[in-house]
């Protein structure tokens, strides 16, 4: 539960952090007339942050899915012609 809670918070903080780094003024920090590996710094920085964000998202998403499956079982999939609302309103359990 503790691990799951931490992952869930991470899943919320990750996009917030990514948004901040892609917004001015932070992104403006990298607007320098410098070449790194022959590439101007600004586009390189954006792509590197982007790639790191993708990597982190992948790691967190996989861990989160696994933790979620451990905690709640596989998500309910509606049958092809659907029976999706869980237990009927009279409280009976469909006993998935």
């Amino acid at each position, binding site marked *: 539960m503790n691990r799951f809670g931490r992952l869930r918070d991470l899943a919320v903080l990750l996009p917030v952090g990514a*948004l901040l780094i892609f917004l001015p003024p932070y992104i403006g920090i990298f607007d320098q007339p410098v070449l790194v*590996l022959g590439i101007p710094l600004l586009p390189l920085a954006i792509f590197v942050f982007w790639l790191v964000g993708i990597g982190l998202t992948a790691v967190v998403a996989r861990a989160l899915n696994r933790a979620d499956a451990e905690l709640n079982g596989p998500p309910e999939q509606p049958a092809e012609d659907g029976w*999706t609302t869980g237990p009927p309103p009279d409280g009976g359990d469909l006993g998935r």
Partner: protein
Amino acid sequence: MLGSGIVVVVASLYLAGLFLLAFWADRRAEKGAARFIGSPVVYTLSLAVYCTSWTFYGAVGSAARNGLEFLTIYLGPTVVLMGWWFFLRKLVRISKTQRITSIADFLSARYGKSPAVSALVTLIAVIGITPYIALQLKAVAASYNVIVLDPPAPPGEPHPAGVFADTGFWVAVTMAAFVTLFGTRTAHANERHPGIVTAIAVESIVKLVSFAAIGIFTLYMLHDGIRDTFDSVLGDPRVAHMFTFADGYEGRWIATLFLAGVAMVCLPRQFQVAVVENSDERHLATAAWLFPLYMLLLSMFVVPIAISGLTQLPEGTNPDLFVLTVPMSADQGVLALLAFIGGLSAATSMVIVSSIALSIMISNHLVMPILLRLPFMSESRSVDFTATLLLVRRLSIVAILTLGFLYYRLTASSNPLASIGLISFAGVAQFLPALVGAVFWRRGTHRGAIAGLVAGFAVWAYTLLVPSFADAEWAFQGLVAEGPWGIAMLRPTELFGLTGWDSLVHGLLWSMTANVVAYCVVSLMSDPSPLESLQSAVFVNALNPSERGVEGAVKRSAASRDIFRLAHRILGPQRAHRIFQDYTRRRGRIDDMPDRDEPLIAHVERELASTVGAASARSLVSRIVKGETISLDSVIEILDRTQQAVSTSQALERKSRELEVTARQLRQANEQLTRLDRMKDDFLSSVSHELRTPMTSIRSFAEILTDDPPPRPEEARRFLEIIHHESQRLTRLLDEILDLSRLEASEVNWELEPLDCRDVVAAAIETMRGLAEQQGVVLENRLVDGPVLVMAESDRLKQVFVNLISNAIKHNSGPDQLAWVGLAGAERPGEVVVEVGDNGPGIPMEERDVIFSKFGRSWTQRPNRAAGTGLGLAISRQIMVHMGGNLRLGETSGTGTVFAVVLRRAEADARTPTAEVAE
């Protein structure tokens, strides 16, 4: 330059291939064999419908014009997908349980299944998306013209030929055919389209591959690798703006980042592929990183292509078509053709999905509500509803594409690709406040949603759409230049005197402000209907597993015949039968409870909603149901469910504490029972022992009597006396055991009455006088004069005194043998204590605890074997307890023992102070 014949043939073959692919995938899906469609990769690739020809051609154009701003179009969705866990997942979960068919349906379902909301959303979507579709047609037409005409038609020149010679027309016609074939084959549940999704996924791969091919070509053929590409243009003023931010970039940067993120969920086609077509919630976890990776790979090549275009092509070349013109200028015809196919893929996939999504919205939310009001549609059973629905959808698709084509023909020469796309984005961004409020804010009402949508849309049209018409020199030029009625303050691009702003940022700012303010203020001012409260609880708490089965709050009933007829008419006989079969099977398997009405109605309503949308489904169902009420109590109960959960857990805690206490008590009771059981065993063995001794002596004397020769007569007489005596003892013993067991079982029904204690004591002393004299013991009655009234039963009390006095006599051993009875001071008011004492040797320490238990003093230790049974004190104490008093051991020492009889004072005497009596 390529021959138009080759281009047309290749493009036609490509599209025909897509047709076949879609056809094959649909077939496989029908057989349930198309498992690859349910894979997260296909889901991710279908999301890539986001990358339209605007990306394919426009991104390079945008980079060439505005530098790095094009990246925000991909960074926005990246951020939204990174937050899949708390937003997209919620949308998917809700859409699955509510059988949502489109974003209009989603908002309508949340805001009380309001037909007004869905109609409004549909209208805005159509108006916002039409230019976007036009943009795709324009892109294909322009790219075709570039690739087959040499020199390319100068930009700005309108369509050289008539409608039938216009490439855009043929693209529109092909797309209409494709979508009507594969997008509207069935009006099926969930609005999933496996054929279309497969085709879109393949098109996404084609887009990426062809764009990457152009990019790699420019990097490694036109230049010598990445480093060389940048080295060669270092300090070149034509490309310098691509590596740095222009002054004042912040406004547009933030605005486009925001719009792109919003478009990821608010664009009807994105909602369609991301939410409606989603077959498994877990796919989001893969798409969350795989789709951003797709966009990253695609945008990596944008800058190199733009560099090549800007530096190697003649000045004035349209940067929107660099993707084609760069390989063409290097005489790479095949590569150019590949680029053309990639652009065609981007355009067609967008047109296909958009027109499907819009056609579902138009048919479900604009046409059906009107059709269902017509008597011949709702009453007549001869009308095939499913066929009508499909026909409406097909007509909607044709109408949408016609509209897009007309827009394209009328505004063909104007705006660069990117700006039309952004205006569309800003249009659909008007859904955002209502959408976010739908899943996070319970207080949002349908009046608020309508107010926000209307206000936002109106300001959007005024500040963004009108100026774009004016730019196209199509209409409103005067209004944009001078403001309405010449009021400069109200000029669309400089509203309220905000000058110097980018028109997109300006329009977005005002429209979102109007939207959010109207939504929040009107929501707070209006009250939600019960159905809205219900739906808001379902939507906002969708990820909370405890919030389920809330439909129980709706109470309604209908004849199942009517329900079936409705399902039959709208969904067709096959599906109706299956739905009912499924329903009864599932219900029957769980329990045999008689079917209540509401679950069945809710089930059928959901099935209907998956075909005609929530609002229409509700209006259909409400015609046949009776007594539809949403009990306010139930709604409140649902809304307070969290509270309820808290109180339930508290109750559980309390219960568990109670159980602990009970368990402890049970343990104690068990210990006591074990002890009692042991005592019973001891008692039985004692009784056997006590009975055995007299029996043995009786038997042995009887044997002597029957011996041969018989004993002398005087001896025989003595033996008979002994036998008689022992029999008496046996009888007495048995009587006492019976007596005791009756007392212990509380089988006594004596009448307690007030009586004078002295009389009883005197009678007991008289009874025992003979024994006392026989033993040489002096009996003293020390009771004072005057009545001592107690509550007791006379015979039983006498029995107690007789027993005690007899003990006192028997245990006398001192030099002056004395036994006495007297009063003592009571410890509590309302009690009378009578003491019986002797001057015997006292009771040894180790026996004091056991004298009141049965056979407490063992037979052998008793000085006078014939004197008693060992039950006397036990019986006496039981008697006293039954009278509400007690019998306890007073002082005992080497010079005597005192027993205290505690009695209840009779009421009449209760006021007499005890001390007085004691004196």
